[in-house]
């Protein structure tokens, strides 16, 4: 009997160095290559950029007793639009340069990467760029607050927009607001403002 091998299990085996042997195909080198060619989780962001942006978005809409930006997949919303929507493509450099400037800002001011700061410290760091009080030499002629406002807007879009664009996973924000979802035509029946 042949048991289908899930990709997750395959990866685990590969990491343990057993998969290749079991399949009888090759060497550690080809295994490493196979792992490398796994599709990257992001279309625009590097892993490092995503690691920085995810907690920024989470600061903007944090998890409490309902899901936050990370749970809702906001990073995937922003990442997808940056390579597919005309308006967003114009912001590719804004993100690339803005994230780099923000990374350096945190290192200079807090001597610690943003991701490793405590939540309250992260909030403080974002207030620095929201109010454009970040070290000017790290931002050049670019406005830190304009960068913050862009990320703020895109985070809201990813959290509240349609799940078909990669964010608002499982209609997290609609659940939070108590809105019926999806908005099925002709199937939302109401009387006196209450669903029947």
């Amino acid at each position: 009997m042949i048991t289908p091998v899930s990709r997750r299990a395959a990866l685990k085996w590969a990491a343990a160095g057993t998969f290749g042997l079991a399949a009888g195909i090759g060497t550690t080198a080809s295994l490493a290559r196979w792992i490398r060619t796994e599709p990257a989780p992001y279309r625009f962001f590097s892993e490092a950029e995503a690691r920085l942006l995810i907690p920024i978005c989470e600061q903007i809409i944090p998890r409490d007793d309902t899901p936050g930006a990370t749970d809702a997949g906001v990073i995937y919303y922003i990442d997808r639009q940056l390579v597919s929507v005309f308006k967003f493509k114009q912001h590719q450099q804004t993100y690339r340069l803005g994230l780099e400037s923000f990374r350096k800002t945190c290192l200079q001011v807090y001597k610690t990467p943003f991701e490793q700061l405590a939540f309250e410290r992260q909030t403080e760091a974002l207030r620095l760029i929201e109010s454009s009080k970040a070290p000017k030499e790290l931002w050049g002629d670019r406005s830190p607050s304009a960068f913050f406002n862009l990320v703020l807007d895109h985070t809201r879009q990813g959290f509240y927009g349609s799940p078909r664009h990669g964010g608002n996973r499982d209609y997290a924000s609609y659940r939070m607001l108590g809105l019926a979802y999806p908005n099925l035509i002709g199937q939302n029946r109401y009387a006196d403002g209450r669903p029947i």
Partner: protein
Amino acid sequence: MSLTKVNVVIVGAGAGGGIVAKELATAGLSVVLLERGGWVDYDKHNDDELWSQRTPALGNPFGPDDERHRRVVANADGSTRVVLPSEGSYNNIAGCVGGGAVSYGAMAWRFMPQDFRLRSIYGEVKDSTLADWPISYDDLEPFYEKAEYEIGVAGDYTANPFCGPRKKPFPMPAFPYNKEARLIEQAAIRMGLHPFPIPMLRNSVPYNGRPACIHMRSCVGFACPINAKAGSHNTVLPIAMATGNCEVRTGCVASEIMVDERGRAKGVRYFDADNRGQEQPADLVVVSASATETARLLLNSKSKLFPNGAGNNNDWVGRNLQGHLYVGAAGFLDEETYEEAGPGAALGISDFNHGNPGLIGGGALCNEFIPLPYLFCNVRPPGEARWGKAHKDFQRHYYKRFVRLHGPVQEIPNFSARVSIDPSVKDAWGIPVCRLSGSRHPVDFQQGDFLSKKAEAIIKEMGATRVWRNGPSPSLGLSGGQHQAGTCRMGDDPKTSVTDRHGRIHQIDNLFVADGSLHVNNGGFNPVLTIMALAYWVSHHIKTGWKGSQFR
């Protein structure tokens, strides 16, 4: 390449052009209707808030697209910047068959009789081009009625003591108030005001072969999945096409009205859906491309007798650009106001449109369309946190406790607010683009300040806990937007207007305008029903002047 000549070529299949097409096609004229966009298919334009007219985060769902279109905005300091169609400062309406009416909120206002006589009522206003219309409310009344019946309006005029006289009631009963409107109504009546149901170009009962509204929360900003919301695309245009006399050509971008050496329009030059240059000859040309794009097309149509653009020998084309300054107030109640019944806006108040002591003009107040969650992120009292847990708490607590009253201010026309042609920027077809410049008149600030305070008083009377005003910005800014109007005003004096009282360009006998460009002023109301009435009015005079195969 020149195509087979037709009687009429119309540019723009929106509220105005669609009606002209139907009126002339059913009268037996051969019509070609050019539209830059396409037919809207609900499956591609569903209830996605990021792909809606109000919040076009990903681009304009109903066109024009960001890839191929540009405009230039001139700032007060003289600097300019190039803007994309989905940016607010582009002042877009739409680019699709049906135009803005595919996705609008569908308020169906008649202007008041006073709106046609502002100069007589309020006198001369410094630095403005305020004038009376060459036609009166009574002239237009039968055409308002025709629009209400052919496109389809639901309403009840009996509760509004300020509306102009009318011969017939609306063809459909008014929509009932939602909870927010019921609460506003009680407060307004206590204050001695006269609230009434907003007339709507939306079916309250089955009408003209289309079903009654199913109350989607995603209504304003979206296409209607069942065509309960009416525009030219689902009413008159199918009739026009069924005559066999009207061909709708989509994906066609007009670049120039061809005007001959004797100063007569010969037809329209355009790029077809495959970007091939075409020439459509016609006996007459009607331009109904919106106040910005109609002006642009006329200005780009240079000829021997009209070196500065068709009809522009007195430099009035593109001037007096107006829209609506929106002001009002918002607040929160302890109890929930939210109802899962779109579109939301249901109640109007017209007490403040005219007769305000010491004030020129005024405007209507209405409760607001349902703000969807992303849009609601910007509904905040001054100083409220924009992000973090405070943002979530605010969304959760207030989304369903929100009340808002706001409305359009009667903008005072001024000569410097204008559409001109940018000397260097071109669109994807190489056509020079609109440059928008100037700003609103200072009187608009006074009106906005006044009207927003009235709204604030009503919301306070409702017992709202947090109330804030959305008053006018001191910078006033440039107007236009979805209510854009005024750039080819009608008038009896060719020196101070672009068309005659029938929408015919002065000095070009066979070139007409039929859209909001004709408005001398834009009322304190959403302008679409007036655009529709004027389209019937212009069509009526074209038909009257049409003699067999010749127009004179």
